[in-house]
C-alpha cells in the first residue's frame, strides 16, 4: 500500500513523499492517527503550488479512505481556511515535524525544512491516517554542517546558529520577533513582506549548482579562518 500510494502521488506532481511514524509525538486529540503522509512540492515561481498540494492531499485522502482508513488532511500553512471546525486542530500539528520524521529532510539553521535534493524550497502538506504503513527512517540531526550563509545574509540577524536535533525540538533557531519586525518594516516600505533571503541563499537544492556554492562557501570559511588567525 505504501509503495503504490507513493507512486501515485509522485506520478501526479509530488516532488517528495514520505511516511512518518508519529506514535508518541502527537497531542491527545489526534493521537489515534499516528501515521503521516508527508507531501512536498518544489516551489517554482509561476506555478500554482497550493492548488497542486490541495489536489495531492485529496488524492491521498481518497486513496486511504477507499481502503477503509481514517484520514485527517492538514492543509499547507499558507492555505488555511478559517472558521471551519477542524481548523481549530491544525495548530496542534507541525508539518516540519512530520517531514523530518518521514526522512524528507532536517530543520536547517534557518528554521526551515531542508531537503537534501531541494533545500528549503519545498511546500509541505500532510495527511494523518491510521493506515498501518511502515514508516520511513527519520532524519535525526541537522546536516547543515559548517555552512553559515543564511546567518550571514539574514538582514535582521534573527538566526541564532543553534543546531536542530529531533530529540530537542524546542531549541530557538530563529528569533521570530526579529524576523517578523523585519518583514513588517519591509511591508511598510515596499508593500510586500517578502524577504526569503535565507531560502534563496541556501546551497542545498539551489539551481546554480550545489557544488559551486559549497565550494565558494568553503573558500569563504577558510579565508575567514585565515583572517582570524592573522
Amino acid at each position, binding site marked *: 500500500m505504501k509503495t503504490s500510494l507513493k507512486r501515485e502521488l509522485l506520478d501526479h506532481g509530488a516532488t517528495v513523499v514520505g511516511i512518518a511514524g508519529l506514535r508518541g509525538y502527537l497531542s491527545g*486529540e489526534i493521537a*489515534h492517527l499516528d501515521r503521516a503522509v508527508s507531501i512536498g512540492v518544489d516551489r517554482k515561481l509561476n506555478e500554482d503550488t497550493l492548488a497542486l498540494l490541495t489536489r495531492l492531499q485529496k488524492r491521498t485522502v481518497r486513496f486511504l479512505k477507499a481502503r477503509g482508513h*481514517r484520514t*485527517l488532511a492538514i492543509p499547507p500553512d499558507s492555505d488555511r481556511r478559517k472558521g*471551519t*471546525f477542524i481548523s*481549530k486542530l491544525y495548530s496542534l500539528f507541525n508539518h516540519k515535524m512530520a517531514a523530518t520524521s518521514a526522512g524528507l529532510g532536517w530543520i536547517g539553521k534557518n528554521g526551515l525544512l531542508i531537503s537534501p535534493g531541494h533545500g528549503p524550497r519545498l511546500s509541505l502538506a500532510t495527511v494523518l491516517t491510521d493506515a498501518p504503513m511502515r514508516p520511513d527512517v527519520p532524519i535525526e540531526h541537522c546536516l547543515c554542517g559548517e555552512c553559515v550563509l543564511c546567518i550571514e545574509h539574514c538582514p535582521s540577524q534573527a538566526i541564532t546558529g543553534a543546531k536542530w536535533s529531533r530529540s530537542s525540538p524546542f531549541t530557538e533557531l530563529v528569533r521570530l520577533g526579529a524576523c517578523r519586525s523585519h518583514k513588517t518594516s519591509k511591508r511598510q516600505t515596499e508593500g510586500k513582506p517578502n524577504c526569503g533571503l535565507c531560502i534563496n541563499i541556501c546551497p542545498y537544492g539551489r539551481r546554480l549548482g550545489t557544488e559551486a556554492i559549497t565550494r565558494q562557501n568553503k573558500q569563504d570559511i577558510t579565508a575567514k579562518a585565515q583572517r582570524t588567525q592573522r
Partner: protein
Amino acid sequence: MATEERKKEILEKLRNAVIQYDEDTAKEYSQAALDEGLEANDAIFNGLVSGMVEVGKMFEAQEYFVPELLMCADALYAGLDILKPHVKQLDLGVKGSVVIGTVEGDVHDIGKNIVKMMFDVAGFTVYDLGRDVPLDKFVAEQLRTDSDLVCLSAMMTTTMTGMKKVIDDLRKKNPHVKIMIGGAPVSQDVADKYGADGYAKDATNALKDAINMIESLKKMKDEVEAKKAK
C-alpha cells in the same frame, strides 16, 4: 421531479457524506437535491442531520474521535450552506432565538460551535457572541435581541464560575429568559446550583432541551398575557 428511488439515493449520499466527512460530496449532492426538486428541509433533516446523528452515536461508541467529529460537522455545514437559503418553512413547531457564547477567560469554543450548529439546523435565529465573551455582554445582547434562550459554555473550572454571575444578572433583568449551560466541567449539579434551566451533555441534548424550554416559555408568556387580558 426526482423519482422515489433517486430521492432515496440522494438522501443516502448526503447522509454518508457527513458520516464519511466528505465535504465535496456533501456539496455535490446538496446541489443535486435542489436541482432535482427535493425539499431543502427533507435534504437537511433526512440527509445531513441523519448522518450527524449517526456520527454522534459513533462518537459515543468511541469509534470516532474529536477530529472526525469536527470534519463531519464541516461537511454538514458545507451542505447546509447550499440548502439553507431554499428552506421554505421549518416544521419543528417552535421557533426561537438564542444568544450563545463561551464565557470570559475561556477560548475553547468547539463544543459551543457544535451546539450552535444544531440551533442553526433547527432554524433558530442564533446570535453568536463567540468566545472569551465579557460577562455583561450576554445580558446586553439578550436585552437587545429579546432572545428566548441564552446558552453559556465554559471549558475550564476557573471560568465556569463566571456563568453564575451571568445567570444572576440575567435573572434580575429578565426573569423569563431560559438559560442553558454546558461544557466539560458542567454537570446537572452545577446547573442546579447556579440556577440554570438546563444543562446539556452534548449538542443533540442541547437542542432537545432548548425546544422544550422555549415551549414552556411561550406557554408562560401566553398565560401572563391571558391574565392581563382579564
